[in-house]
């Protein structure tokens, strides 16, 4: 399938390795990947922080850049959540019926990576090899907004060599929450404290998720504690093979 990669500004700038892994994985599975270079940011940070008038031009831009593709895939549950679940609200705010129609049509074609693989293309074994002890944190937006369900876990269970351990109280928010992590830093860190405790309880060496934003928060806390546990995006685990 020909898919457009929606890299997200966050991954593009801070986590290019996740983008590279997503491209390698999709190509290995036989998909043709396009990268529309006019893409920037979906507007989630602006919209969720209340700067919604400022987000509307970014919504329009996204529709222009991605509107013509049959499938758009992103290694981020929360950015896909923005496009699929909140773009209609932005279009309503802009009082623009045409934009509303466009974002509703586009929303059906935008997928988070694991739901694209499992739900859209029916693949659960991507031929990956990853000989590490790993625990998976289901991010709130992939879990409760996109409802990807067990798709990421199905993919991980089929990874060769992996020692996958269940994360206690996995469904509880890690405390990132976008600008919440800075605006309410104390509460955010209190939530993080419990998440880290659960991660450490698994004795995993790696904590993975489908969103680098949550992982930056969890990983930042682990690193500050010199916990010796790393965070790695799901795409990077799935892209790993015996050869590399």
């Amino acid at each position, binding site marked *: 399938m020909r898919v*457009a990669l929606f890299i997200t*500004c966050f991954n*593009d*700038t*801070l*986590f*290019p390795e996740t*983008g*590279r892994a997503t*491209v390698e994985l999709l*190509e290995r599975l*036989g998909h043709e*990947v*396009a*990268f*529309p*270079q*006019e*893409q*920037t940011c979906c*507007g989630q*940070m*602006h*919209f*969720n*922080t*209340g700067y*919604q008038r400022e*987000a509307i*031009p*970014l919504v329009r*831009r996204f529709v222009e*850049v991605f*509107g*013509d593709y049959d499938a758009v895939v992103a290694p981020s549950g929360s950015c896909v959540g923005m496009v699929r679940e909140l773009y209609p609200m932005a279009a309503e*705010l802009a009082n623009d019926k045409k934009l509303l129609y466009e974002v509703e049509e586009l929303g059906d074609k935008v997928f988070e990576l694991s739901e694209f693989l499992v739900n859209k293309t029916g693949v659960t074994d991507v031929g990956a090899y990853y000989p590490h002890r790993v625990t998976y944190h289901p991010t*709130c937006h992939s879990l*409760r*907004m996109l409802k990807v369900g067990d798709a990421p876990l199905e993919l991980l269970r089929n990874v060769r060599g992996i020692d996958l351990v269940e994360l206690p109280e996995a*469904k*509880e*928010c890690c*405390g990132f929450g976008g600008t*919440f*992590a800075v*605006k*309410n*830093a*104390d*509460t*955010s*860190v*209190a*939530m*993080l404290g419990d998440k880290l405790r659960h991660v450490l309880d698994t004795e995993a060496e790696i904590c993975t998720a489908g969103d680098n934003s949550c992982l930056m*928060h969890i990983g*930042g*806390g682990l*690193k*500050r504690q010199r916990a010796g546990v790393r965070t790695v995006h799901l795409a990077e685990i799935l892209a790993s093979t015996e050869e590399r």
Partner: protein
Amino acid sequence: MTIIRHQPEKQAPPDAFSKGRTPTFEESAKESLANSQLRRNLGKATQTIRRKRAVAVAEMPDWEELREAGRALKSRTLRHLDDYLVQLEESVTRAGGQVHWARDAEEANRIIGGIAKSHDAKEVVKVKSIATDETKLNEYLEGEGIAAYETDLAELIIQLAGETSSHILVPAIHKNRSEIRELFMRELGVEDLSDEPPDLANAARLYLRKKFLSAKVGISGANFAVAETGTVCVVESEGNGRMCTTLPPVLVTLMGIEKVIPAWQDYEVFMQLLPRSSTAERMNPYTSFWTGSSQGSGDGPEEFHLVLLDNGRTDVLADEIGRQSLNCIRCSACLNVCPVYERTGGHAYNSVYPGPIGAILTPQLVGIGQSGPDSLPYASSLCGACYEVCPVKINIPQVLIHLRGKIVRHKQDEGGLMGKLDPENVAMQAMGRIFSNRKLYEGAQKAAHIGQWPLAKNGTIHRLPGKLAGWTEARDLKPVPEQTFRDWWKTRGKGSPSNGSSGDGAS
């Protein structure tokens, strides 16, 4: 065990519904988060009730249909609220009750105080009611020389402690039993009291029984009121509500206008949704229904007054996205699952409505443009756990985002130069422009990589300046790498084994 004294004289601290500025959530949360006793009490209580609720809900094969029915009933009622309220007034009047309309808290308190005074009441007994907390009725009555006695055990505890409720359903959730024992010994003058729940309840019972029998006026809130029949309903667990609504000769009910439901039959839905969502019970212990006054039958109060309270509710109703907040049946399931509430407790919200529902209801009821209530929609990571459990399907994250938009627009449009020069606003405007232009965006990526050099040491940023320091207080940060993804993409094409990937833009 003897009880020797008590007059409820302690003033509760001010909140969003009092006059004057209240602290922001962020400021108050700092204090709550550092309180280890509070963290322990709340963590234990919310996790227990959360697990029990999940079991109680899982028993119901049609739970999702019930939620949808609850939502649909509430939204239909709100669409025709004017008609249903007039119908309710007619039904209550027909059954011998009197209906009063209160535009705001002041008017409601004046009406209720007037009723008490007309009966020369110096004491009133109260059923737990958040509406009366919202109007600050107790303080008002005290000023009029009338003592209001809370009869719900938890409400009594916080009244004795001079505190405010920290939870919609279990107002003293922040206190454990040894703290309650000490409070009762000190405030009720009880000697040799253990911290066993039956002993604590018995101390409260001995104290309250006399009040039930002597008070001339009972005051309640309402969970529901049926427009068709005029029947008012209070759902409770202790029986104190039944006492207050049946023993005193005069009963006054203060009810928010959104509590009306069209027909008796609608209880079928709400009586299944409410107990399971709130206390994880299949059925709550006491459900009291009354229709009008006794009209000489000797059954129930001789005089019944229903005070219908607006106090900002019609403004909420006027907001297309915000109005779903009025669906709320005060079950508090959203508080119990909220990871923010679990850690900060209710007092950090500085409102009679704490937790996720309080974060959307409070700023709407008191109006946008005050720093305290305006901070509440930001007291959420938007994790969505509240929406998932809400029995009437209030999309709380959506309303939170909507209110954040209103707050920012209010600051930008009404905040003058200060609003425009606010550092967050300036940064957001700049980023908005950068994201709207590919060249600016790519330039900013380069600038971020170059500009971070004073901050990055050995591949890690340990400290950020200004507001962003909140991040690095407890978290390290990965610096911006030299090669962005798009840079890598541009370099690949040549010699890459890829199967014809395209680097073209779509636009």
